[in-house]
């Protein structure tokens, strides 16, 4: 059995527990800048397709489902490649570079539907490739005891970028008098700045353990022999399987609380705002009281939110409560899971391990989304929500009682 984290992976100069490492801040900065670029495009894409090109965007909805599955597999490739050549930063850089290039690709694709589809696929592939090596870098650049805080800081910075993206897009649209290609060019420039910051300020962290020769592909699956990590993956996937995707939750909120259609696009902002505020505090809480505990607690919060959605109470304040709880759920689970996974993984396989757990989670969420849609159609919204809420509660309690988080010394 591997016992990882034999030594502190410190690059921190400050006092332990006070500050996050410069490398984590640099990675956070890269994510912030990249997310501005990505969310700019996401915000104007429907406009560009319908008004700019006169296309029917429903076709892209169909493509999107395909990409979701493909991204999960690309993630594994990125994770493995990073570990195989011991080049976390380089592989992450390729991912960021691909996404940056795809912004210019949108201009080149013109009004050809297959070409736009291909460009969006490249963007998604870039996102898939970079995620695991980036999270491994964050993990390796942090003190083992403050992993939760490091991931919290990173995710908070990432979310700031997501907030700024649409605003920057609006400024560009205003400044260019509604020219969509200006948005893509600006997005490309910003994404390239992200790559520049990565190249200049992020230090690679080659692992100090493991063999010097390239790790074979099978070593990724062998990670599942580590009992603690295997249980972590299993429970994370099980919890993801009984989940409600964001869009379904927002739809349910709209149906139940009669949220006006003008307000509807603002619902995700509510979740993101709470996530932004709580990512760091909950990360610290996770470091102090146990990451898996906070992770499970987050799911308890989510079950409560679902209970509120299908409960007997009505009123806008319930909808606000649900959004707040949804944000708490994200803050308690997203980065915290990576922080929990880190210590189980040997340094030379950290990207592989992170890719594995993220892919498992992503595939489980996809299956869950399909099943949820099916159940909604068969039973209607409220019964489906009740079943999911109860199911989530049961699995969460099971996860809490079985204590799979018992950490190696």
């Amino acid at each position: 059995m591997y016992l990882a984290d034999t030594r502190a992976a410190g690059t921190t100069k400050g006092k332990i527990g006070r500050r996050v490492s410069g490398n984590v801040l640099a990675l956070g900065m890269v994510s912030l800048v990249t997310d501005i670029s990505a969310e700019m495009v996401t915000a104007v894409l429907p406009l560009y397709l319908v008004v700019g090109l006169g296309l029917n965007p429903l076709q892209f909805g169909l493509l999107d489902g395909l990409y979701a599955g493909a991204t999960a597999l690309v993630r594994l490739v990125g994770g493995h490649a990073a570990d195989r050549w011991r080049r976390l930063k380089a592989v992450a850089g390729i991912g960021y570079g691909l996404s940056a290039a795809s912004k210019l690709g949108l201009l080149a694709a013109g009004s050809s539907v297959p070409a736009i589809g291909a460009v969006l696929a490249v963007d998604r592939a870039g996102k898939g490739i970079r995620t695991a090596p980036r999270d491994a870098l964050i993990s390796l650049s942090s003190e083992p005891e403050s992993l939760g805080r490091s991931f919290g800081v990173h995710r908070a910075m990432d979310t700031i970028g997501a907030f700024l993206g649409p605003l920057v897009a609006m400024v560009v649209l205003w400044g260019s008098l509604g020219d969509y290609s200006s948005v893509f060019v600006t997005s490309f420039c910003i994404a390239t700045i992200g790559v520049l910051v990565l190249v200049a300020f992020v230090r690679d962290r080659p692992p100090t353990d493991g063999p010097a020769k390239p790790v074979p592909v099978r070593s990724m699956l062998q990670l599942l022999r580590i009992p603690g990590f295997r249980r972590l993956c299993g429970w994370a996937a099980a919890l993801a399987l009984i989940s409600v995707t964001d869009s379904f939750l927002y739809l349910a909120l709209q149906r139940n609380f009669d949220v006006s259609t003008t307000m509807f696009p603002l619902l995700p902002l509510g979740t993101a705002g709470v996530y932004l505020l709580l990512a760091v505090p909950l990360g610290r809480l996770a470091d102090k009281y146990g990451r898996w505990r906070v992770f499970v607690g987050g799911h308890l919060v989510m079950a409560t939110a679902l209970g509120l959605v299908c409960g007997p109470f009505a009123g806008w304040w319930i909808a606000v409560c649900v959004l707040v709880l949804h944000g708490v759920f994200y803050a308690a689970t997203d980065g915290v899971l990576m922080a929990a996974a880190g210590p189980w993984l040997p340094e030379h396989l950290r990207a592989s391990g992170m890719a594995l757990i993220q892919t498992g989670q992503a595939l489980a969420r996809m299956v869950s989304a399909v099943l949820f849609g099916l159940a909604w159609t068969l039973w209607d919204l409220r019964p489906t929500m009740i079943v999911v809420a109860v199911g989530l509660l049961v699995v969460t309690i099971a996860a809490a009682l079985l204590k799979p988080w018992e950490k190696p010394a």
Partner: protein
Amino acid sequence: MRKILVTVLGVLVLAGAAIGYVVSARTGAAVNAVPVQNGTIELGPDRLYFRNTAAGPDEGKLASLPSASSAVRLVDGLKCDRFALAKGTGICLALQPGVLPPITDVVVVGRDMSVVYKKSLPGTPSRARVSPDGKIVYWTVFVTGDSYAATGFSTRAGLYDLEKKQLVKSIEEMAVYVDGRRYRSSDINYWGITFAGDGNRFYATMASKGKTHLVEADYQDFNGKATLENVECPSLSPDEKRIAFKQRNPDGTWRLSVVELATRKIVRTAETGNVDDQPLWRDNTTLLYGLTGSDGGSDIWSVPANGSGAPVLVVPDAASPAVLAR
């Protein structure tokens, strides 16, 4: 230290490039590529109305031409992405500039183009029509955020009853029957409404689970039943015997077609291009529609509805044709 310097330099170059591009995009064509005459448009017969898509200061504005001549297009101040009219009522869908998430202004105008009703709805403009009696206006917008996939899109078709002053933001709440059974699904999307002359019967496309159905609906009872498959963006002929629509080809493009309601016989028109528009009946024999050209611009074409003849270019650099039928 050198690292910081190089990065700052890189950031400055990239920021400069972005700002330079944005600024250069501001200066669009100073003169209209197609000459226009500025004036006041009135909604009357024997005229063709459309969105002027020719580059220049008057791009995007509502324009009008006498239907039977090649006169200079008359341009009004009103900007419309989609426009339609019937019986002295016009509807203009205009995207609010530079607003995210996108918001569409639904503007209803009277015969003299005075604004009768105005409402802002989330989404981007897709289709607009007026019932033949001029009493109901209806539209379709694309919205984001309520689809399964995070970046997916869906449509929302709504209507406004000018007599009852009643707004229906989405007809998705309507009871709908497929094969005689009440159909419930979370993924229902509607688009392309078309009303009959009685101001009560209407048709629309309903999409769910990868299929598209033509739904024949009753406005008063607010229910509908699926009658045909693969009939998108329906448009009822003035004699109410046929429906022109875009038929999806296996390769994902569309073919402009007409179905006879009594016999369900489908005729494919002579237009072989990919028509992604709700067709418009100029009269009982001719269809008008917008078509994207190879250069990415849009033109208005016409083609006989019975499958004969060939497409004819009616107005270049134009979209969203509208005429006063009947």
